[in-house]
């Protein structure tokens, strides 16, 4: 508790907290409000009189209908869901196995392999996107969701591995040894005993991987071209910034809807997300 008077509590504690929350959340409020305001209200200059930008008296869903009727937004949502989910599953698969190997198995180069995987995490997508475009072309994956499904794991796997290593390390060795004494093979022990213990970790890694996939932009921008293949971030950027017709309403509507799946997944698993994030940092 903060010692001191009510005034002290308010100035040092409540007010800063409120300011933080307001600043962090205001853009989302702005997104929501803009999505529902009609064009006439939206485009009034900042110093026009009699103008309250923070609320609308004439909410409209015209921007949302525009989004779905005139663009492939629905398709983009499906694409992004598909890509994110598949990439997450692949990354989890690889990450769990690799994490187990690095955390619980004894073999030469274990340490350096861990370091190598970590190093690959440090190679940013913006470094690789130009040569990767060539490689994607050589594999004939250009303009297909697979170009992303196979490349997203490059930044998801290191993270998942690292996270899972932390969780696996925390499981006592005795569990495995008991199982093996009872006759289970190492493989069986891993699959039936250890991995189930790490389910919270797997859940955390999966959720974070899912949000990271949804957040990826440059690969999607460069590898995909047809409108029906695009992901939500790329689609919103390229097809709602248009000519001279005002589209901010739909843009915000698109941004809002595009954020919803991630927000929903996150809201169901907040605890897992947070523990995953902090686990990776502490681990």
């Amino acid at each position, binding site marked *: 508790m903060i010692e001191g008077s009510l005034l002290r509590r308010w100035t040092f504690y409540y007010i800063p907290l409120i300011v933080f929350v307001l600043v962090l959340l205001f853009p989302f409020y702005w997104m929501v409000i803009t999505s529902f305001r009609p064009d006439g209200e939206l*485009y009034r200059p900042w110093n026009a009189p009699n103008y309250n930008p923070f609320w609308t008296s004439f909410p409209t869903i015209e921007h949302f209908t525009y989004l779905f009727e005139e663009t492939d937004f629905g398709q983009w949502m499906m694409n992004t869901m598909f890509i994110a989910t598949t990439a997450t599953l692949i990354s989890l698969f690889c990450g769990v196995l690799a994490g187990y190997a690095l955390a619980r198995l004894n073999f030469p180069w274990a340490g350096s392999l861990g370091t190598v995987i970590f190093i690959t995490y440090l190679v940013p997508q913006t470094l690789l996107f130009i040569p990767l475009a060539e490689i994607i*072309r050589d594999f004939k994956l*250009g303009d297909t969701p697979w170009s992303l499904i196979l490349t997203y794991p490059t930044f998801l796997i290191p993270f998942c591995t690292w996270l899972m290593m932390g969780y696996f390390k925390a499981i006592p060795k005795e569990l495995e040894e008991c199982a093996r004494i009872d006759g289970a093979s190492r493989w069986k022990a891993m699959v039936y005993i250890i991995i189930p213990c790490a389910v919270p970790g797997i859940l955390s890694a999966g959720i974070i991987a899912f949000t990271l996939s949804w957040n990826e932009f440059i690969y999607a921008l460069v590898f995909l071209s047809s409108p029906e293949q695009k992901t939500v971030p790329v689609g919103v950027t390229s097809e709602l910034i248009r*000519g001279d*017709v*005002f589209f901010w309403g739909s843009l915000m509507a698109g941004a809002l809807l595009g954020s919803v799946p991630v927000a929903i997944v996150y809201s169901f698993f907040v605890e897992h997300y947070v523990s995953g994030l902090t686990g990776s940092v502490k681990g």
Partner: protein
Amino acid sequence: MADTKRRSVIKLAGSAAAVASTGMAGILASGRTPAYAQQKTVHWLRWVDFVPASDALLKKELIPQAEKELGMKITLETVNGNDLQPRTTAAIQSGTGPDIIMAFNNYTYIYQNSVVDVSDVALEIDKNEGGIYKYCKSFCSDGKMYMSVPWVVPGGMVAYRKSWFAEEGANKFPDTWDEYRALGKKLKAKGRPIGQTLGHTFGDAPGFTYPLMWSFGGKEVEADGKTVAINSKETLESVKFMTAFWKEAHDEGGLAWDDTNNNRAFLSGTISSTLNGASIYIETLRKPDQYKTEKGTPMKDDILHSPLPKGPAGQFGFHLMQSDMLMKYSKNQDAAKQFLRWIHAEKNYEKWFVSQKGYGTPCTAKWESHPIWNADPVLAPFKVAARLGQAPGYAGLPNGKAAEALSKYIVTDMYAKAVQGMAPEDSVKWAESELKKIYSA
């Protein structure tokens, strides 16, 4: 994988005529429908038209009509103009993408190695329509072959508020830059500045900066196409002028504007004049009740157009050139050419041209006599845009090097830097060194 299977089926089905049994066996074995039921497809990538009515016409009328008449599936995709270049590069790099891609200006030279020779289509148009303007030809053809089929020239003129200019005593658009500057000063003092973008946008920024430079006598290279000539007294004069002109008369937010900001600013009454295509005016025609002046009258009645003012060396205009490239990686080249011929057929092109309402000037002389130019006097100045334009790379050719300089916004940045505080001499020197890097490579 699906592609190779389909191709082998087509091959097999193709030889069905010669060896029926193998063909049929092949088709049956692959379990796919025979080749002749396969539709030809053409994917056309264009910018999002600043005249929405034209895009609507294409999507709802012309394309379905073409599909029916030509028996092929045609996909029209539109993207933001600034994204066309990255899209094109990405498509070429990944070896797959739209069959026909729209190119701006002389970007055709940048993609020279990746396009198909379309001289056959272009020369037909040249013959049937009384000749393609030299201006357009210089962008689309390198002298040996046509890299793209000219489409249209969206002209750039200054759109201005008639009443506001009249209030300051100008009953017609100023003739010279100095007059324009004096007028702009008065307007800005009343909160009605001139609006101009100096950002990295393909249309309005080069459309202003290149003619500005030329009208003062500046140029990028000499006629030999090699010697960089931008660091001259004339260019320096133009930069000095622009720096003062900007502060005195312009909305200084213009540094961050793209091609749409000036439209919105004009339509919401925060600027009094701007270089633009006809889209501002056309928008006011589209929604006369939404766009009103501060007095409550329809804004469409308060807009006039004029070419950029004269400078000491003359009066110039640089108008956006749009043409269509047929990409080498395309697997539907014949169908694409067929479609290009179809869309350029007079009766089809005319429909599109009319929907533009004068925003776009076609590339051949024949269309100058079209009645639409007489329908609305406000749009009359746009008629001769394609005829009078001058191409970047002057006084050399608008070739790949000029295209590179254009796509790097060197000339525009020269002005932008000066306006932001760099000494004019330094910004001109900077432009010179950048151009030298390109022209000496």
